[in-house]
């Protein structure tokens, strides 16, 4: 029994934190707030030099041969630093879907570019505000001989403005599966609530689409869901750190507000939500990475808990700061928006709890 990360994995986390504190302070993140299509190409280049994008891919596809589990703490650091790069989308979501579902030829063709950082992939699933998967996927590819074509529009596609490769969930008969679109996708960058991150709609007009070999959206969607949770943990940790730190500095009534139980107990509740969310997210990452029997169930448990409880934590973080967190200048709103966006991305709490109910036979 060993439910914790290895010394090497913690080593990578520490290295990532040092690197990001230096290369990606919030002042750097803020350079991209007003640019709908903007993201940090400089940071991306440096991350590629460190080999981060290559980390979870096998060596024959230009990777470093590490596993999905080696990504978990790194994703947390990217969440903690609000790094304005499409790492989650390209490496931890779309890249993992290709690795899990692609044929040998498809992996060999698509993964080396993702692993080097030269190509950026994004995951396109949703089409409507309450559409997270299942029967809400209404994009039906057409077949012409051996060639498939996609028509229609995917919305809420994270990192779409940065991407040149799309992994798209579409419905064939009564079965959802993944298609890869390398050319012909038209991206419209959109204004995002979380201004540190890009998103947009992606429309296809008879775009050539290559179906990934393994059918169904699972396990790829579970990997992507677990990855989102892992990133949320890092942002939530930072919110708690900031709130505790502020409560020690800020004085009212002649004493630090952190000495009042109203604030202390709020922070203790946040710490408890965070620890439970960590346990759930890390367990899901382990379960989906190792193909455990309860992989699907654990990904729904993790996302339902992280969605609701970390969004609650983020709100409490703002409340704990009082008026200062209501300003644009303070960083708390960036974290609040990061978590609120992640809360609904790939399914909100009620969506995943309904999945739990079905799996456990309710």
């Amino acid at each position, binding site marked *: 029994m060993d439910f914790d990360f290895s010394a090497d994995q913690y080593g990578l986390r520490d290295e990532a934190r040092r690197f990001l504190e230096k290369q990606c302070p919030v002042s750097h993140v803020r350079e991209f707030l007003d640019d709908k299509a903007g993201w940090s190409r400089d940071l991306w280049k440096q991350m590629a030099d460190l080999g981060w994008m290559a980390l979870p891919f096998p060596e024959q596809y230009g990777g470093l041969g590490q596993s999905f589990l080696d990504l978990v703490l790194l994703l947390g650091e990217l969440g903690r630093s609000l790094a304005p790069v499409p790492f989650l989308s390209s490496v931890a979501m779309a890249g993992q879907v290709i690795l899990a579902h692609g044929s040998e030829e498809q992996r060999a063709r698509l993964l080396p570019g993702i692993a080097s950082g030269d190509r950026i992939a994004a995951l396109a699933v949703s089409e409507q505000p309450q559409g997270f998967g299942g029967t809400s996927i209404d994009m039906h590819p057409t077949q012409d001989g051996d060639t498939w074509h996609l028509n229609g529009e995917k919305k809420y596609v994270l990192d779409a403005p940065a991407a040149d490769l799309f992994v798209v969930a579409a419905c064939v008969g009564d079965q959802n599966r993944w298609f890869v679109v390398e050319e012909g996708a038209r991206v419209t960058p959109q204004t995002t609530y979380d201004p540190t991150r890009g998103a947009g709609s992606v429309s296809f007009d008879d775009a050539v689409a290559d179906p990934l070999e393994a059918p169904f959206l699972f396990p790829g969607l579970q990997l992507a869901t677990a990855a989102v949770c892992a990133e949320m943990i890092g942002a939530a940790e930072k919110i708690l750190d900031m709130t505790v730190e502020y409560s020690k500095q800020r004085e009212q009534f002649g004493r630090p507000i952190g000495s009042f139980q109203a604030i202390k107990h709020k922070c*203790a509740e946040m710490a408890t939500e965070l620890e439970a969310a960590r346990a759930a997210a890390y367990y899901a990452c382990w379960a989906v990475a190792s193909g455990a029997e309860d992989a699907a169930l654990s990904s729904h448990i993790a996302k339902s808990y992280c969605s609701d409880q970390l969004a609650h934590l983020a709100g409490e973080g703002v409340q704990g700061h009082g008026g200062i967190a209501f300003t644009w200048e303070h960083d708390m709103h960036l974290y609040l928006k990061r978590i609120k966006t992640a809360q609904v991305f790939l399914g909100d709490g009620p969506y995943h709890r309904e999945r739990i*109910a079905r799996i456990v036979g309710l």
Partner: protein
Amino acid sequence: MDLAFSPEETAFRHEISAWIRDNLPAGWGTPEFKEPKTFEERLEFSRAWEKRLAEAGWAGISWPKDYGGRGTTLMDQIIFHEEMAAARAPQIFINFVGINLAGPTIMAHGSEQQKKRYLPKILDMSEVWCQGFSEPNAGSDLANVQTKAVLDGDNFIVNGQKIWTSFAHVADWCLLLCRTDSSVAKHKGLSYLLVDMHSAGIEPRPLKQITGEAEFDEVFFTDVRVPRAQLLGEMNMGWTYANTTLANERGPAFLAHQIRFRNSLNDLFDSAKRTMRDGVPVAEHPAFRDRLARAYAEVEIMRYIGYRLVTSILRNGRPGVEGSIAKLYWSEMVRRFQETSIAIAGLGGMLDDEDGFDGGKWNRGFSMSFAQTIAAGSSEIQKNIISERVLGMPRGEVWAPKPKEKV
């Protein structure tokens, strides 16, 4: 990160599950089984069951070999508790304090003579222990213990009152936290005494609790003479020792509790599927369905938290700061779970016992759930501990009444 069990651990799991299957009380778990109802019946039942466990050597599974225990690894202890829970075996009742609280505290701080005298009789169940900690004015503020032990020649003379003492009227011995020095700061003047419950001047009075049962006693001590040799460890070190005892209140059993909750949850799911509202099972009504799925997620997360606790003990030799966080998470989870269960019972929850929904078990569970957020350090105390010791937030000012103004 690897959550798999080793082949040896799996073999041990088979061994213990076979033993449980062969040794459960006759008829246990079948609808015909007559559950013990009164405290006396439960006592008699648990004495027989725990005696059987003791004879097979399972009672001391967590105790070192030097003290007659099995000296098993933490993982084997966890597996043992998990299998007991999975088989829905009766929980340790009468010998709980002896095995989990008194025994480990004596091992840690007692003299060789005390260890020889007391430990074997805990293991073979010939002596029952109770724990004298809480008092009417020492609950969350445990260090405020007022029961006094004054040295008079070779004896301490003990006066005071304890409350929430489980098994006091059937116990042979009491692990008593009492004040031996009133002139110093409150947590510096406490000592531990091993008190013979058959001594003159001890009067336990059963305390009828929220469920109508009497699991606890109030205990009154009036001029009770306790030989000086019954002092555990050093004088005025009681607060430090008490923390050993409290650390043992939670442990490998955490994961077993989780399994018992999952059993309970499965029962609740069954009830929700056969209880109709507007012609449809409540399990299919979105509002209930969401609450039931949430309960499932929260109970599963308790298992993951348990794995993190165990890993921390295996890697560092002791549970980390996660202990208080786990306690808070679990206690609050139980309260929500029981709220959900009694909501499923609906109007059935208006009635109790044999007239009640599922024999009144959700009513009992609901009432009992308040014990989780009050006992063994209330949720508010856990939040103080987490905020001060985990998050490093400042302690609040000590409240003091304003001096009265002179007229």
